């Protein structure tokens, strides 16, 4: 098979995504009052309604509309005031009613889009830049044209619907549906609020798809509408892929790719499917419109049985639910509830706080780090210059804190570090009360003990000695004790400075401010030359 780069010489990939996101932050399901927690025993979070017990009726959870509208506003969609829920019918054992309540032709959110900045290595995957913009002409602060390109990805719609249950296939090959002896069904997830976002076929590379999903995830996390865990299935993404010859504009036959349950799998699955389709087309074959399954361990996509694909959904408006008619007041209230979105946050970090674009993207790209960073800055006294604090704070988070979290595989929440502690620590280092090396040691303690760094420094007695008189006295003692070395130095053997500094550090248990002790020795020794000369 050809590589992606080789395929892209002759072919253009046309990719659209369908992103399903569970509204995990709601207290209850979308059409019934069951609570929702990941990992509960099977069929213990169900009620007669989500279990599809005959005679029960759905009643819409107001907060689910709010989450959906927030998602739409954050992705520049038009909010449709009037819409209806429809029943979409198909028989599958993960559905308790064998119909899914979903939105009809008009969804709460229609016709939106996101701008994607594709920078660095990600940009290299796209060989043809038609339809993109250079970064410096867009609003990417601090980027240069060489950094990459910008492209807009249209969003067709975001609609609200109910999730299905989970099947476990027993027997056969490691949980696969194919070859199973029987299956078991758990309906805990059934009826959870689910929003489905459908993009226009505007994506051209697997890398763009990956970046789009990352950006979308960050927006949803910022909105607080879902925990967006691809691992636990609360964020799921399917891709529609077709190829066309460079220079042509008609769409080829597409396949739908499923089971891309990580960002890497999304990228690799799409890349594989693009190469598979290219090989098929180049050898004179045709692409069959079908659903395919990405198998990362075997590096292949396989077609699913045609019996599973359904032609007709027998859609009609659900008579058990009232039509939706959103008011201007409601939409305005939702708009006022929008938090600062990731792009705005990056812009603020770069323009107001003077962080580098790279640092701003790293910080803003991790919702937990970004929130922590913002809270730490907020904790700073009014008199402090936020710009001065921002850079070292960001460094501390990006380097020391991230390294610790990675090493311990912890999230910030799981440690005892608080934003105000990190601020205090940064200020201690900034004012040279402790060295940056000591800063790291203190941080390690704060993570575990959850105490104020200033108190910890006090308690451990590791406060850096930066008092000029104290340092002067120590230096003088060392010079007095080593007259021979002083004489050698003054005769021109200036390399001995290191010896004196070393002695001073030893005498202060390493607490002497290195910069200050250096300067002090140079001063004292030069004075000595004068007096002897």
């Amino acid at each position: 098979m050809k590589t992606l780069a080789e395929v892209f010489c002759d072919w253009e990939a046309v990719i659209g995504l369908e992103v399903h996101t569970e509204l995990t932050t709601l207290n209850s399901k979308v059409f019934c009052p069951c609570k929702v927690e990941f990992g509960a025993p099977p069929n213990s979070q169900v009620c007669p309604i989500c279990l599809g017990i005959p005679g029960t009726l759905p009643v819409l959870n107001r907060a689910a509309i709010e989450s959906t509208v927030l998602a739409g506003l954050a992705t520049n969609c038009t909010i449709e005031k009037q819409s209806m829920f429809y029943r979409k019918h198909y028989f599958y054992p993960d559905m308790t009613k064998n119909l899914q309540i979903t939105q009809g032709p008009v969804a709460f959110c229609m016709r939106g889009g996101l701008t994607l900045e594709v920078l660095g290595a990600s940009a290299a995957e796209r060989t043809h830049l038609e339809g993109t913009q250079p970064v410096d002409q867009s609003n990417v602060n601090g980027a240069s044209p060489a950094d990459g390109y910008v492209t807009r990805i249209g969003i067709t719609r975001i609609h609200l619907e109910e999730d299905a249950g989970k099947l476990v296939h027993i027997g056969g090959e490691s949980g696969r549906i194919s070859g199973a002896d029987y299956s078991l069904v758990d309906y805990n997830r059934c009826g959870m609020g689910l929003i489905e976002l459908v993009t226009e076929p505007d994506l051209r590379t697997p890398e763009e798809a990956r970046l789009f999903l990352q950006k979308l995830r960050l927006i949803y996390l910022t909105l607080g509408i879902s925990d967006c865990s691809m691992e636990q299935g609360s964020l799921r993404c399917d891709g529609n892929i077709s190829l066309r010859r460079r220079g042509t504009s008609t769409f080829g036959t597409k396949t739908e790719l499923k089971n891309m349950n990580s960002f890497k799998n999304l990228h690799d699955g799409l890349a594989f499917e693009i190469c598979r389709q290219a090989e098929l087309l180049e050898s004179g074959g045709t692409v069959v419109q079908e659903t395919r399954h990405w198998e990362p361990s075997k590096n292949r996509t396989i077609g699913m049985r045609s019996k599973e694909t359904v032609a007709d959904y027998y859609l009609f408006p659900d008579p058990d639910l009232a039509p939706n008619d959103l008011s201007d007041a409601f939409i305005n209230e939702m708009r006022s509830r929008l938090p600062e979105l990731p792009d705005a946050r990056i812009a603020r970090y770069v323009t107001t706080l003077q962080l580098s674009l790279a640092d701003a993207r790293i910080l803003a790209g991790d919702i937990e780090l970004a929130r922590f960073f913002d809270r730490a800055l907020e904790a700073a006294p009014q008199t402090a210059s936020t710009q001065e604090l921002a850079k070292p704070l960001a460094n501390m988070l990006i380097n020391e804190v991230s390294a610790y979290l990675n090493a311990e595989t912890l999230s910030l929440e799981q440690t005892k570090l608080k934003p105000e502690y990190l601020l205090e620590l940064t200020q201690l280092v900034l004012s040279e009360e402790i060295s940056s090396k000591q800063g790291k040691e203190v941080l390690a303690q704060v993570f575990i003990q959850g105490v104020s760094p200033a108190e910890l420094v006090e308690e451990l007695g590791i406060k850096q000695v930066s008092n000029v008189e104290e340092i002067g006295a120590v230096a003088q003692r060392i010079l007095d004790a080593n007259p021979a070395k002083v004489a050698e130095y003054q005769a021109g053997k200036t390399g001995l400075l290191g010896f004196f500094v070393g002695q001073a550090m030893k005498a202060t248990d390493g607490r002497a401010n290195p910069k200050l002790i250096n300067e002090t020795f140079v001063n004292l020794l030069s004075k000595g030359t004068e007096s002897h000369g």
Partner: protein
Amino acid sequence: MSLSPAEYTGFSVLDILTGLDCRDFTARDVAKAAIATIESLEAEHVGAFISLTPEMALKAAGNVDGTCVSGASPFEAGLLAGVPIGYKDNMNLLGSRTTCASRMMENYESMVNATCVSKTLAAGALPMGKTNLDEFAFGSSTETSAFKTTHNPWDLTRVPGGSSGGSAAAVASGMLTVALGSDTGGSIRQPASFCGVVGFKPTYGVVSRYGVVAFGSSLDQVGPFGRSVADVALTTDAMCGHDVRDSTSQNIDPTYYKSVLAGQREGIKGMRVGVVSEYLNAPGVTAEVTAAFKEALQRVEDLGAHIVELELPHAKAALSAYYVIGPCEAFSNLSRFDSIRYGYCVPDATTMTEQYERSRAEGFGPEVIRRILLGTYLLSSGVYDTYYYPAQQVRTLITQDYHSAFEQVDVLLTPTSPRTAFAVGEVSDPTTMYLSDIFTIPINIAGNGGLSLPIGLGLDSGMPVGLQIIGPQFKDSNIMRVAAALEATYDIPRLAPLVQELSNTPGGDAR
């Protein structure tokens, strides 16, 4: 103290409440009399019940008596204190099976209480059992029940009508004082007419549909049967109103009985009563029904009301719209019966598809299968625009028809059904069967309320004839008022003669 079946079968709701209040008898006496009546009539003759719940009834009676013993009035135990009630077996009642008269649900143990059930129980009613129906309420004779044939107490060779035939027959035979039914195209009013009792379908949204197994979700409405307009009104008062579990249920004041009193005391002088004379020329309207209907109109006029001739130009299309919308919603609502979480399941299928197909084929009867397939077809892409969409447009026209009609009149009158009860097995062709509902169906399409009032026996068949009284949406008070006033002009038995015969010849077979 005890109560004989003969006394019990003559009781109205108010008779029971008054008797309890005067300490003439206890609720347990009522329950025991009801059980005894059911024992003498049910198995050998009527066949109105799919299951009986005597223990639950006695327990409920005990609770009512407990309230009364403490010196309180039975009214404190609720509007239906000590009143034997039956529930159509598509209504979930905890502690009972809800079979929908289908093999599919033969062993299904209810997992909820329907709101109409819990509200009537909270009002002190005594749950005697679950009544027979056409399978999943698809039918007009109760003959499609998978379990038994229910016989019309007025003539055991005839059908009770349907689909709520068990509830109608149980009230007509005196086994129950009141019973609940559901009405999608006439399933309360038509059997009430066939069995000579009062049957009322309130305006869509008056009674919560929660817990009632759905047939046509935009058409279904729960309502009561009784032997008097007052009993039906009191039962409606006990169960109407908003329910958070049904988005379509509305805030309704329980003033139905108040409207009955208004009709009884103040009459209907000056009210405007609409009639569509074209209706009497509809296919299958028998001479005896026409005669009884005309007599009723005369009585209405005699009471001082004005008769207004009206046209409902789209009423004919209502039948077509109904037979499109009904099957579409039914197909959808019955998709959940898939043999996984409940319901009939073949034990030996080798794939899920086989289990679906065989369980549903063996669990559903022929009429259910017909309607599911019809709904599947009507909703398929390409066909949807030819039938389903126009049917909902027709619904707009029919609703407008009624709207303009009710600008001119306070109620509309029609016969409830073109004919009286037919013989068991007489009508087998589905399209002919559908004709028995031509006057009731349009009301479900428009959502209005309608009540069937007995207006005597047909001159030819000797079977009860019913008058349908239709009101404007959410103005069921008009219906109650006219029904109560007109009822007072008739002196006709509400209890089928069967009961008398049986009490004269104990153990005798009336068939």
